C-alpha cells in the first residue's frame, strides 16, 4: 500500500498522463489479444499452405458474440456469470499495472511480480469454477485438467520472473523493465536465457497452445480450455474470449518487455507512449509468430506428458534463479 501511494506521489509524468497510459495499455491488450490470436492463426495457416481466416477474425467473432444472448445452462449459480467478469477484470488490472507501453503506468509501485502472477491465477481459478458450475462432465474434466496444468505452470511463471527480479534487485515489474533497459548486456546472461525459455513454455501452457492444448480442436474429449467454456454462449462467451485473449496479450507483452524492453515509453510524453505502443505491438507480434511457427512443427503431447514439459520449464526457472543468485 505504501508503495502504491509512493508511486502515486512520485508522479513525474503527471498522474493523469499515467492513468491515460494505463487505460491505453488495457485497450491495447484487449484489442491486441484477439489480433495476436488472429495473427497466430494466419501464420499457422500460411505455413500449412492454407489461406486461413483474416487476422481480424477474432474481433469479428467478438462483435458477433456481443450481439447474441447469453444463454446459461440449467442449474447454474451466480458463479457462471461472475467467472467471465472476474477473468476480464483480473486481466484488465494486470494490463493496467504491468509495464507494457510505458515503464511508468499508474500505480506502478503496485506492479509487483507476485501481484501480476496472482492476478492471472485469479482469472484461471474463476474460469475453472465457471467450468465446474454447470455440473457437466466436460466442464469438470476441463477444469480438472486446467488446474493440473496451472498448478505447475503458475509457480514456474513466478520463479522465471523471479530470476529477473534477482538480477534487477527488485520484484517490481516496472523497475525490472527499467533496469533491463539500462543494462542491455543482461539479455545475454545465462539466467535470462534460461528464464526466457522457461517463460515461453509457461506462456504456451497458460494460453492453451500446442503442444499443451489445441485451441482449434473439435474433439470434446481432448479439450482442456475449450472444455471449460463449452457451456458459455453469447456475451458470456465474448467476455471469456476477451479475457483469454487479454491473458495472451498480457503474457506476450510481459515476455517482450522483460527481455526485450527496447522501445518502451519511459518518463517521456505522449510521443514516447505512442512509440511504446508500436514497439509493444511489433514485439508481441514477433513472439506470437515464433510461437505459431513452433506450433506448426510440433504436435500436441499426451496429456500426461504435459506436467513433464512444465516441470522442465519449472526446473529451468529454478536454475535461472540459482544462477542469478550465484552470479551476484
Amino acid at each position, binding site marked *: 500500500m505504501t508503495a502504491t501511494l509512493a508511486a502515486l506521489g512520485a508522479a513525474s509524468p503527471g498522474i493523469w498522463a499515467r492513468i491515460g497510459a494505463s487505460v491505453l495499455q488495457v485497450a491495447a491488450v484487449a484489442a491486441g489479444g484477439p489480433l495476436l490470436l488472429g495473427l497466430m492463426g494466419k501464420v499457422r495457416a500460411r505455413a500449412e*499452405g492454407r489461406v486461413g481466416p483474416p487476422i481480424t477474425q477474432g474481433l469479428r467473432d467478438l462483435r458477433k458474440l456481443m450481439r447474441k444472448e447469453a444463454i446459461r445452462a440449467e442449474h447454474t449459480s451466480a458463479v457462471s456469470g461472475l467467472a467471465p467478469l472476474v477473468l476480464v477484470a483480473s486481466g484488465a488490472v494486470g494490463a493496467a499495472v504491468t509495464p507494457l507501453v510505458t515503464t511508468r503506468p499508474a500505480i506502478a509501485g503496485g506492479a509487483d511480480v507476485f501481484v501480476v502472477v496472482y492476478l492471472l491465477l485469479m482469472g484461471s481459478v474463476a474460469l475453472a469454477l465457471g467450468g465446474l458450475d454447470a455440473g457437466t*462432465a466436460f466442464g469438470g474434466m476441463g477444469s480438472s485438467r486446467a488446474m493440473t496444468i496451472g498448478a505447475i505452470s503458475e509457480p514456474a511463471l513466478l520463479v522465471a520472473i523471479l530470476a529477473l527480479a534477482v538480477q534487477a534487485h527488485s520484484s517490481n515489474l516496472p523497475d525490472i523493465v527499467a533496469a533491463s533497459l539500462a543494462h542491455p548486456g543482461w539479455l545475454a546472461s545465462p539466467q535470462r536465457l534460461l528464464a526466457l525459455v522457461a517463460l515461453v513454455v509457461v506462456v504456451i501452457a497458460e494460453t492453451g497452445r500446442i503442444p499443451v492444448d489445441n485451441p482449434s480442436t473439435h474433439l*470434446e*474429449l*481432448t479439450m482442456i480450455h475449450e472444455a471449460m467454456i463449452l457451456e458459455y454462449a453469447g456475451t458470456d462467451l465474448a467476455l471469456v474470449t476477451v479475457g483469454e485473449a487479454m491473458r495472451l496479450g498480457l503474457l506476450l507483452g510481459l515476455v517482450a518487455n522483460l527481455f526485450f524492453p527496447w522501445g518502451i515509453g519511459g518518463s517521456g510524453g505522449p510521443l514516447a507512449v505512442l512509440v511504446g505502443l508500436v514497439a509493444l505491438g511489433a514485439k508481441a507480434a514477433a513472439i506470437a509468430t515464433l510461437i505459431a511457427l513452433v506450433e506448426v512443427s510440433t504436435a500436441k*503431447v499426451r496429456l500426461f506428458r504435459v506436467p513433464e514439459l512444465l516441470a522442465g520449464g519449472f526446473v529451468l526457472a529454478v536454475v535461472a534463479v540459482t544462477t542469478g543468485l550465484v552470479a551476484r
Partner: protein
Amino acid sequence: MTPHRLADPAPQRTSELIATGDLPTRARELLHAGFRLALVAGHDDGHALRVVYAFCAGPPDRRVELQVRLDPAHPAVPSLAALSFPASRFERELADLFGIEPVGHPFLRPLVRHQHWPPHWHPMRGDAGPTPPMLIDAEPFPFVPVEGPGVYEIPVGPVHAGLIEPGHFRFSVVGETILKMKARLWFVHRGIERLFEGRAVADGVVLAERISGDTAAGHTLAYCLAVEDALCVETPTDAQLLRAIVVELERITNHVADLGALCNDVGFGVAHARALTLRERLLRLAGEVTGHRLLRGAIRPGAATVRRLPTEAELAEVGGLVDELVELATSNTVVMDRFTGTALLSSDDARTIGALGVVARASGLPVDARVAHPFVDFGPGLVPIVEEGGDVLARFSVRAGEVAASLRLVAELGGSVRSLDASAGDVGRRSGSGMGIVEAWRGTIVHRVEIDAGHVVRCKVVDPSFLTWPALSVALADTIVPDFPLANKSFNLSYAGNDL
C-alpha cells in the same frame, strides 16, 4: 421358391436347409474348420421366418450357407454366442428386427432397437407395416454401471462438437483412465435393407452406393457381385478389372484422408493440411475417372464403365506425395509418441471379436478378402499389409502401406485392361440367391441377396464396421480419455454402414 435356389448356388458356394437343432453342431464344425461367420440374415417368407447363416473361408474361396426355417408360432434359434462372438451380435440384430429369439443368448440387450421403438414392433417382419409413432417416454438404455471409489461417467454424443456421425459413447473413468467404454450406435438406422426390397436389381445400385457414403464403390461392388452370383451372370474380365481399380482408388483416397486425420487428432495440423490437399486431388482424379468424385456410377450389375484410367505418372506423383506425408508424420517425435502404444488391440482379441480390415491387419491378422475371396486375378503383387503392433501406429502404418500397395496395384491392373466399358449385357429377370464379398477400404463387406424375377426380395448387408465396433471398446482399456478421439479415428469405423 427356395428349393430351386438351394440346388443351384455358384460353384464355390454350398447352401443347405438344416434342422434348427443341428445348427450348433454344424456351426461348430465349420468354425473349427477355419470358417468365419460372415453374415446372418433373417428372412420373412410370409408363411414362416427363415435364417441364413453364411460362413466363409479362404483361400481357396469357400462359402457355406446353413439355412433354418423357424416355427411360425414361436420363432427361435439356438444361440451360437458361445461359439462365436459375431454370432451374438447378429442374434441381437435378429431379435430386434425380426423378433427371433436366440435361445441361450448370454446377454440379450437391444442392439438396433432404440428405446423409443414401440414394444413388439419388428420392422423387418413382413407385417411390420409403416413406421408406427415412437414412444416419447422411453426407458434409457441399460448401461452397465461401473462402481468403485472415484469412478465417474462421461456421456459423449450422439451430437458431437465436430462434423462426425452420431454415436453415443459412455465412458466409465477413474481420473483420466478409461475403465470401460460402451458405444451406443444405431442413431442413423435408415432401414436400408428394407428399402432394397422390391427394387429391380439395377435400381439397387443407387441404394448400395449410399449405404456408407465413403464406401460407395465397395458396397456397390459387393451388391453387384451378389446379384451376379444369384443370377449366374458371367461378368467380363475387363469389367472386373475396372471394378478392382475403382475400389482401390476408394481405398487410396480414404486412407490418405485417414492418415491426415490421425495427424490432426494429435494437433499436427501441417500434415492434415497436406493430406486434405492430396485428398482433394484424388477426389478430382476420381471425378475424371468415373465421372463422380465419390466413385458412384462406375459399377453396375454385370458391368463397369470408366471414362479413363489413372495414368502411371499421376499414380507415381500421388505415391511420392503420400511418402512425403508419411515421412513428415513419422519423423515427428511427438506424433510418434502419441501413436505408439495407444489403444492396443491384441491379436487374440481381434480374432475373438472377429475384427476385419485395417484394424485386424494392424493386430497381426492377415485377413483380406482380395486374397480369400478374389473376384478377379489380382496378380502376384497383392500381399496383405500386416503389422503386429495393434496400436494406433500399427493402424497408421497399415494404411500407409496399403496406399503404396494399392497405387502399384492400380497401375498393374490398369495395364491388363483392354476396354473401358465392359458389360455382360442384360442381367435378365431371373431368380436366385447370391453372395458378394469385397475387401473395401475399411475391411470385408458382405452382401447377400435373394432375387425373384429380377427384383430384390431381400438384401442383407454386413459392413466391416458392424463386426469391428466392439474391438474399439476392448482396445480402449487403460487408454486415457484424451486419447479416445485418436483411438476412434485410428479405427475409423462407419456409423452409417453399421446402423444401416
